[in-house]
């Protein structure tokens, strides 16, 4: 301890104190201030750049989400349109089928009616012919009967054979 106190030089202490104060002041002015403020500036710049990048990334994400949404909408629209078209097609087919069936029914009915009318007309004509034929036969039979009995019979048979119902 005595040695330490003896080694302590007040002059050196004063010199060191004065030099250190001057050094701190000079360093502050010429070195630390510009260095630290530049470091701060740079760090803020980096921070700003990072934030801007993050912001851009978010914007990009939003944009992509928007695109996705538009795409989805378009797809939905397309689907809706396709569905509608399919429905229209089915409906048209159904309608056409209905129409055709009605037409066919109508034609069939008309045909049936025509057939029935023809048939009625044919029956009526047949009736007339039968009546006429019967009268003719009866006339000829009467005529024959008067001449020859056998012949009359033959004649009737012949007549009847001729009278094919056409």
């Amino acid at each position, binding site marked *: 301890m005595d040695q330490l106190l003896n080694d302590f030089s007040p002059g050196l*202490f004063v010199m060191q104190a004065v030099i250190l104060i001057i050094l701190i002041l000079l360093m502050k002015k010429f070195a630390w201030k510009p260095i630290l403020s530049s470091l701060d500036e740079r760090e803020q710049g980096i921070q700003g750049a990072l934030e801007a990048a993050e912001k851009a990334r978010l914007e990009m994400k939003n944009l992509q989400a928007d695109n996705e949404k538009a795409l989805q909408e378009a797809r939905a629209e397309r689907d809706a349109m396709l569905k509608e078209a399919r429905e229209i097609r089915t409906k048209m087919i159904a309608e056409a089928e209905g129409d055709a069936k009605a037409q066919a029914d109508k034609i069939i009915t008309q045909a049936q009616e025509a057939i029935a009318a023809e048939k009625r007309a044919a029956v009526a004509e047949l009736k007339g012919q039968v009546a006429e034929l019967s009268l003719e036969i009866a006339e000829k039979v009467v005529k024959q009967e008067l001449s020859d009995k056998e012949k009359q019979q033959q004649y009737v048979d012949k007549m009847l054979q001729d009278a094919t119902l056409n």
Partner: protein
Amino acid sequence: MKITSLPIHFLAVISFLLCGTLLNAQEHSVAEANDEGPVNTQQEITDYTNHHLKDSHDFHLFSYQGSDGERHSFGFSLPVILWASNGPVAFMSSEFHHDIDGGVVVEKGGSRFVNLHDKIYELEDGAEEIVMGEDHHPVNAHKPFDLSITKSVFGILLVGLLLLFWFGSLGKQYKKKNIPTGFGRALEPLVIYVRDEIARPNIGEHKYRKYMSFLLTVFFFIWVSNLLGMTPFGFNITGQIAVTVCLALFTFFIVQFSGNKDYWKHIFWMPDVPVIMKIILIPIEVLGMLTKPFSLLIRLFANITAGHVVVMGLIALMITLKAQFGAVGSTGLSLVLTLFISVIEILVAFLQAFIFTMLSALFIGMAVAEHDHHHEHDEEGHEVDDVEDVRESFV
């Protein structure tokens, strides 16, 4: 311009790192104490080491035996500036003719001065030569106030100029470009290191800025001084107790002047303890105020002194072990061991600068800390990180 400036920076660093380890051996093996011939005995080695550890009034590099049989000393003298009884006196130390035993009397400004073990003594009126008392202290002389440019002051100035040059040019670089080039690229991370690892976590995000100039200057001053002590120039700046006392006192005063209400309250009226404890704690806390910087100054001084003693002791092995191992063996052993210890000393040089700055920042942080544990809130309502929390997370 750039091509020429780069090697100078490079050389400065290389000389710091390499010369200290390699050339130390060369210097100390050739040199001797007080121009009295080569150092050979154990006593001479001890004297030489002690002489090196102390401050000196001239800058002695080495001496050699000339062909004419005379001893020539290589170095230069430094100015001696004294505040003696008859006012200020200044002369060159060469007037003592390298004498440090008080034999040569210099008469200047009506006073007589002698150089006794690198301390300048002023002889009392009428005394012709110094007379030593029983306790090995001179009886007829006293120490004047010595403001000389001693070897250490020279070293301090050198360190100051180096720092100004290095960091001044780094500061200037930012005017032109965002990212420094050359040597500045190596210095910038160190500045960031001090800011982010020492100042910020210990003092706190909001208050550290004010203390950066002190912390940075002291950190680099101690580091460069320690490294300069590793060079063959034989500086021992941070091994001077006056220098470490000065550095620690700076920390002490900065801590006391930045101490807030909480700091003083914790010293003189410790909250949350019984009254009787408060009274007992006052002297303990006051003592604590003083022991903190005291530990700083002793730690730095002792580490650097010990480092120098060990390096010089290992260099001296080439003399002390010459009889056992022969000249080549002892020199080789000394070289290997000195190289090994010097590498450790380079680490210690940084470590001591770091510890001194770190603890200074810690003490400042303790003085400015908000001790109440309800957390502050800033405008947005976020919790402001308490200094305590920052320190906890750091530890």
